[in-house]
């Protein structure tokens, strides 16, 4: 707290009729004037309008205000605006306090205007009490390293790398196998165009030759330290180690095809996976006359409830290719639901049927049985079991998360969901971000998807990464947690709880908040057994003051 006199200005907003239609705003303003340290109070119709903001600036100037309270809507809508206004008028933005008398008052107490007005008075009194204890805070600046690390050299990783490199960002691309290309290297043709998979691999050359991309094959990550804009990466290739700095990390490690050991008599010879079929078709060594494909093998079951999205199209694609090679081949596909969404895939399904490939729906509680030379399954339509001759059975299995994605997740301190795929910040609005700033996800490492979606999402991740890399510095929010090292005993509870992985252990074993990553959520402060953590802008003084004046009454 500074030594200068605290001079608080209160601006009560009518918000048109949103607040003014329920709450007596003039009375509220009158009441505000009676509170300790309030030297100026005013009400206006729309504080967020240009006129309203001008009033705030005028009030600050004329009455030499050093704390500003606006009682109106929600901080989510206009806090940045009012903070900026204060700053423009020479008041530190953290001396601004927002009292919500709309969402938390007039809107929910529409039918009780008198009580709502009384409650609004309480809220303002609380706000004034807090304002007295507010402190000036500075936003920190953090330097950003413009380089990016892309983990994974499949189609996703290569797409991200190329986009960023073309825009001038240096990219380190690491791939643990000995060549780029990922799953594409094992594929025969791709749907729905039925182009050779090698066509898509043409960008490999662009990646290898690009002056902004450094490719490391047969390489894995050993260690990751740091935070957004300032990562220290250690990689190993065989025995060699290398270190470099990057500003953002993109995970594009893909997924693998489930090998259905123990399911449907899988033996890799007569009962194979679609991936193995791809190899056979590439080598042109197929000689089966009766083929049965079974969908949803090891997927949509207990223990693995998800649908892998692409397997239906894979089966349809391979069925069409086989029929093309040898029109006499009998192909039957046993399915639970056929997944061919969108404008192109539905047509592909229709074409597949037209080509004479048979489809039979099976129920998960009466799955097919693979026998010596046929497959037995219940035909629900006629309620009879049928036997379908089969000299080759192809199992469509899902893409599953790599077992060792666990290690990567730990290294990067990002979460995974129940099936082992990486978990993004928000399923809908932040599908390629992580909650922790600076790390991004795309492709099948995120969730099984086809090539087009992989490419789109990879570009999406590149875009999001570049919103950081494009800046020389990043401004960091001032309302962060801070550890009092004299009180800290190094128990580590805060480090475990922090959802953003913002707390690191110092050399002395104590907790230290990396302010650039901290979001000020307060979890650490609430959990510290030694009360060693202060959440700036939400200090104990401030919160206790609010509670005290509320209990004291008017």
């Amino acid at each position, binding site marked *: 707290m500074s030594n200068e006199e605290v001079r608080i200005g209160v601006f009560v907003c009518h918000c*048109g*009729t949103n607040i003014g239609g329920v709450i007596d705003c003039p009375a509220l303003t009158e009441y505000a004037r009676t509170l300790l340290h309030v030297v100026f109070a005013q009400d206006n*119709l*729309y504080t967020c*309008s240009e006129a309203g903001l001008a009033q705030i600036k005028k009030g600050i100037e004329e009455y030499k205000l050093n704390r500003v309270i606006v009682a109106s809507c929600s901080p*989510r809508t206009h806090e*940045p605006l009012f903070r900026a206004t204060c700053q423009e008028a020479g008041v530190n933005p953290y001396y601004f306090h927002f009292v919500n008398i709309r969402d938390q008052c007039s809107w929910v107490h529409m039918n009780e205007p008198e009580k709502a007005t009384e409650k609004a008075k309480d809220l303002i009194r609380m706000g004034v009490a807090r304002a007295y204890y507010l402190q000036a805070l500075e936003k920190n600046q953090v330097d950003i390293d413009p380089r990016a690390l892309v983990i994974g050299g499949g189609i996703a990783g290569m797409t991200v790398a190329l*986009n960023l490199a*073309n*825009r*001038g960002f240096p990219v380190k691309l690491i791939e643990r196998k000995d060549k780029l290309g990922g799953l594409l290297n094992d594929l025969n043709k791709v749907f729905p*165009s039925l*182009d050779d998979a090698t066509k898509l691999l043409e960008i490999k050359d662009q990646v290898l030759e690009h002056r902004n991309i450094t490719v490391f094959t047969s390489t894995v990550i050993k260690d990751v330290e740091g935070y957004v804009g300032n990562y220290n990466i250690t990689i190993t290739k065989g025995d060699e180690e290398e270190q470099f700095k990057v500003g953002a990390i993109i995970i594009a490690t893909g997924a693998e095809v489930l090998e259905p050991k123990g399911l449907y008599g899988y033996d890799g010879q007569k009962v194979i996976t679609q991936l193995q079929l791809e190899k056979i078709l590439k080598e042109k060594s197929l000689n089966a006359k009766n083929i049965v494909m079974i969908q949803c093998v090891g997927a*949509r079951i207990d223990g693995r*409830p*998800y*649908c*892998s*999205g692409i397997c239906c199209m894979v089966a349809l694609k391979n069925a069409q290719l086989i029929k093309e090679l040898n029109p006499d081949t009998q192909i039957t596909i046993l399915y639970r*639901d056929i*997944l*061919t*969404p*969108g*404008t*192109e*895939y*539905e*047509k592909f399904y*229709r074409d597949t049927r037209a080509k004479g490939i048979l489809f039979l*729906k099976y129920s998960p509680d009466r799955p097919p049985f693979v026998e010596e030379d046929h497959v037995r399954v219940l035909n*629900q*339509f006629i*309620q009879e079991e049928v036997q379908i001759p089969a000299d080759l059975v192809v199992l469509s299995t899902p893409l599953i998360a790599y077992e060792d994605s666990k290690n990567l997740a730990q290294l990067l301190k990002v979460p995974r*969901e129940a099936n082992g*795929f990486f978990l993004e910040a*928000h*399923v*809908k*609005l*932040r*599908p*390629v971000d992580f909650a922790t700033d600076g790390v991004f996800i795309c492709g099948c490492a*995120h*969730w*099984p998807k086809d090539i087009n*979606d992989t*490419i*789109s*999402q*990879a*570009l*999406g*991740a*590149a*875009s*999001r990464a*570049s*919103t950081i890399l*494009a800046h020389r510095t990043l401004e960091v929010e001032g309302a962060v947690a801070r550890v009092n090292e004299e009180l800290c005993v190094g128990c580590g509870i805060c480090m475990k709880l922090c959802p953003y992985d913002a707390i690191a252990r110092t050399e002395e074993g104590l907790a230290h908040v990396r302010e650039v990553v901290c979001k000020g959520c307060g979890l650490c402060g609430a959990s510290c057994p030694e009360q060693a953590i202060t959440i700036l802008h939400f200090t104990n003084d401030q919160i206790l003051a609010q509670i005290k004046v509320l209990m004291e009454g008017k």
Partner: protein
Amino acid sequence: MEFNGKEVLVIGGGIAGIQASLDLAEMGFKVHLIEKDPCIGGRMAQLDKTFPTNDCAICILAPKLADCARHPNIKIHTLSEVVKLEGEVGNFNVTILKHARYVKEDACINCGECTAKCPTKVPDVFNTGLQFRKAIYLYYLQGVPSVMAIDKEHCIYLTRGKCQICMKTCPRDAIDFDMQDEEFNLNVGAIIVATGFDPYDPTPLTRLGYGRIRNVVTSLEFERLICASGPTKGHLERPSDKHPPKRIAFLQCIGSRDINNNPFCSSVCCMYTTKEAMLAHEHDPQVESYIFYIDLRAAGKGFQEYIKRGSKEYNITYIKSVVAEIEEDEDGNPIILYEDMEIGELKMMTVDLVVLATSLLPRKEVNKLAKVLGTELDEFNFIKTTPFAPLNTTKPGILACGCARGPMDIPNSVAEASGAAAKAAEILQRW
């Protein structure tokens, strides 16, 4: 990294256009976001909740609207459309037609006095015609910019020279009937098309009775009925007698997977129907829902679990079937005649309300736009994109994302929007 200071044009102010604009703005590019309606927000603003988390659509959209409006690098042009395009990638000259709002954007404070007194009542398109709005109106409650607009086709002054009640009640002199449509030019390096979708109108499917049987509604009408900011304040009422329905049937693949009416699959309807059935159950635990489907398409993250939860906890029964027709009994209850595909039997079911899961089609204005831009459309009038460069249209420098490209859900639209931003940035940073 240097770039040439060129700007980007984003056509369409829905969630995809907004995401692309925000990404580009964060990267340091200047963006012009044009939107044909009076407010940005698009279709997502019309939804109640969104799958698979069932969080409130407008609650997660509104902060993005506010960000767009406030970002110094984004300029929003509403009531605007592209009318001419010249030039080539890296150097496009675009002519924008901005229709007159007849309300000064910097003067209107959205106090609502004019709307209260405007004498006309016009069916409200945002609420799918289920309620009326005035000729001077705010497109929707949380719309950005939060400024009124005058509908010149229904304004008595603009059509017949009488009235002007709004002008007389406005406390800020914000109404200006002398405003004209104006054209202005922009020079941009890249263009992103994010025009979104229109829902299929099931009137031609006469067997299903939409338009004939009052208790047959579309999915978007259902969203508005169950939304707290909609015409019934979120109380689900059936149209004929306003009684709350207890037995609801949802029919899938309306205007999709149908060789006579759009053969493609609309991708999202299986999921959004489950969501709607869940919402109906949340509003009234006595509701039983029946979803008539062909194939249940739920491949995204958490989608299978969502469907399972639906049938376990929300009293939803999934029936693999083909619906032949819908009739109506004396009390207005729809009767569904269908073939149960699991056992091959013809059956009948009487319900209180039928919701048709209509497909997502390209906006009707997109034909004109494609001509102006010189981009090709596919056979369904979606913007055609090139194989394995899914965000590139057939014209270099013009990108497309979201439902303008093909029916898709919000996570995919957002990811694609970011992707289109990356592509646009690549164009600008190369030239």
